[in-house]
């Protein structure tokens, strides 16, 4: 199958959508399909071989934060060229309503179109305001995917229309094997039992891990830092490792020195370093306060057999199987976090159990399964012989009814 993927955000900046699209492209290539990925990018040289640059991304304010998007007549022309040259059997557009390459591709394409909605925004006024203008384009989407029940809810409220839910994918083997390389089943179970033994070692000072852009308040590091004194009172040996890009002074200036002394900032990590850190975590903490439509990092932590303690957001609850595959605490409640954390650190049996359940739960999000589901969606919207074309002008289409009747007969055959 010839598949065209469209990604709205600059590929060189980290982000959930970009990571998902690149992983999906890798999976599809591995499954023997032809893939072309249209994306904004800053430097064309660093792109993977299957990616096509639609233009430079520009940082603009969009929907309450700053997004790096590509738009304008030159980008629009690149999108049309890409569609013309592609001869795609299906085009898969991510965040189709985002005013970037995605919206331009949706605007210009005609044929079997699949779209994935990633974000969950309780109040996206911009989306609702733009809905009537977007409607004729959104009407063209044959198969809608939402990454979670929360993202589906957002689509229902703001654009209308049902989705099927296909979650984001994780390469589970990469997190369970040493050195971040894919490993055998045996190595994986050996690790799980080794990790369980480590967790049971009461004397070892515990390491708790936070990962993400910690300067963003909604990622919840302030909640964790407020909880920390209460934790250290009872467990003075606990150490917090914060990994991710950002300036530590922005978040640490009001933290007492004795607490700050127990915090280590690693800066941004490579993928291999991230795996190693998760694998030695005694508890992985996700204190996010909202705005999450999924929880890919929770899946990664579970795959690495790290016991997870997360804020009780709907998306996190879903990923943690309702609290069976990880512990939950009330959103933005430092005291609740501290109590849950002390409880979990003191309960070696529960942590060993989570280290065992986590990887099993993460399998539901493994690319082997998620990728198959995406392919099923592609197949179920493809008429035989149907291809994605550039949309001819509506006026021509309306007057050309005879051509359309012939086309319909061909499709029937």
């Amino acid at each position: 199958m010839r598949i065209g993927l469209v990604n709205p955000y600059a590929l060189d900046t980290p982000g959930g959508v970009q990571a998902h699209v690149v992983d999906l492209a890798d999976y599809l290539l591995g499954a023997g399909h032809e893939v072309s990925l249209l994306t904004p990018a800053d430097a064309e040289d660093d792109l993977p071989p299957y990616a096509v640059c639609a233009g430079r991304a520009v940082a603009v304010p969009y929907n309450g934060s700053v997004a790096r998007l590509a738009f304008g007549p030159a980008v629009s022309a690149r999108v049309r060229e890409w569609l013309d040259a592609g001869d795609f059997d299906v085009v898969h557009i991510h965040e189709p309503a985002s005013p970037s390459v995605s919206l331009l591709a949706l605007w210009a394409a005609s044929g079997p179109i699949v779209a994935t909605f990633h974000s969950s925004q309780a109040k996206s006024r911009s989306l609702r305001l733009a809905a009537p203008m977007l409607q004729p384009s959104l009407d063209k989407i044959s198969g809608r995917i939402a990454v979670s029940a929360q993202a589906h809810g957002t689509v229902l409220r703001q654009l209308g229309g049902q989705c099927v839910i296909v979650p984001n994918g994780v390469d589970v083997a990469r997190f369970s094997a040493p050195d971040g390389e894919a490993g055998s089943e045996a190595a994986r179970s050996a690790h799980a039992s080794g990790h369980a033994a480590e967790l049971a070692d009461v004397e070892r000072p515990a390491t708790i891990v936070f990962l993400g852009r910690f300067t963003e308040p909604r990622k919840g590091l302030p909640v964790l830092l407020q909880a920390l004194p209460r934790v250290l009172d009872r467990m003075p040996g606990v150490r917090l490792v914060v990994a991710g890009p950002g300036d530590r002074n922005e978040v640490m200036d009001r933290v007492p020195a004795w607490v700050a002394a127990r915090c280590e900032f690693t800066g941004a990590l490579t993928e291999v370093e991230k795996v190693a850190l998760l694998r030695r975590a005694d508890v992985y903490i996700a204190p996010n306060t909202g705005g999450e439509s999924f929880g890919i990092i929770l899946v990664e932590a579970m795959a690495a057999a790290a016991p997870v303690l997360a804020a009780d957001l709907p998306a996190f609850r879903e990923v943690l199987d309702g609290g069976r595959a990880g512990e939950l605490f009330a959103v933005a409640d430092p005291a609740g976090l501290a109590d849950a954390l002390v409880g979990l650190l003191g309960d070696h049996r529960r942590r060993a159990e989570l280290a065992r359940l986590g990887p099993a739960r993460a399998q539901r999000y493994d690319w082997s399964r998620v990728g198959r589901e995406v392919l099923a969606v592609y197949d179920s919207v493809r008429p035989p012989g149907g291809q994605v074309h550039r949309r001819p002008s509506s006026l021509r289409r309306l007057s050309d009814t005879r051509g359309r009747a012939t086309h319909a007969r061909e499709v029937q055959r």
Partner: protein
Amino acid sequence: MTALTVAVVTGVLAVLLAVGWYLSYAAVRLDRLHTRLEATAAALDAQVVRRAECAIETAYARGLDPASATLLLDAARGSLDHDGPWTRERQASESAMTRLMRVVLPEPGNFPEIHECAVRVRLARRFHNEAVEQTRRVRQRPVVRVLRLAGHTELPERVEFDDDWPDGIGAQAA
């Protein structure tokens, strides 16, 4: 007097322009929805045929007991005998096919090919019915009905048959 005339004429023109814009907007939407409807209908057709063909292959190749294989072949023939519009008989034959598959293949994990086919039929029907619903919503608007913006094409109908299948993505969310 002339000022009033100008105001009236401008007002009438503005109203006409707005009406014209709305009509063309509705026509464009209808056109796109119909294009999508043709595509999802053809995709559903293809997946239903594909599932029947896959059932025939399974019956011959995958070491089913002869009774199960015969029943499966019979249901697949019933499905392939119908094509074209989704008459009540055609929908019934697809329901029968699904129900038989659930009985004959209780553990679809052992038959990955036909499992994938069943998942695709379920998805294709959902996506087609979604297109049907959206088209009907637009077509039943008074302006579209009165002005016959949709021409003489019939109002599309949902395709209803039993496609329940365990452990597929179609099984999630209503």
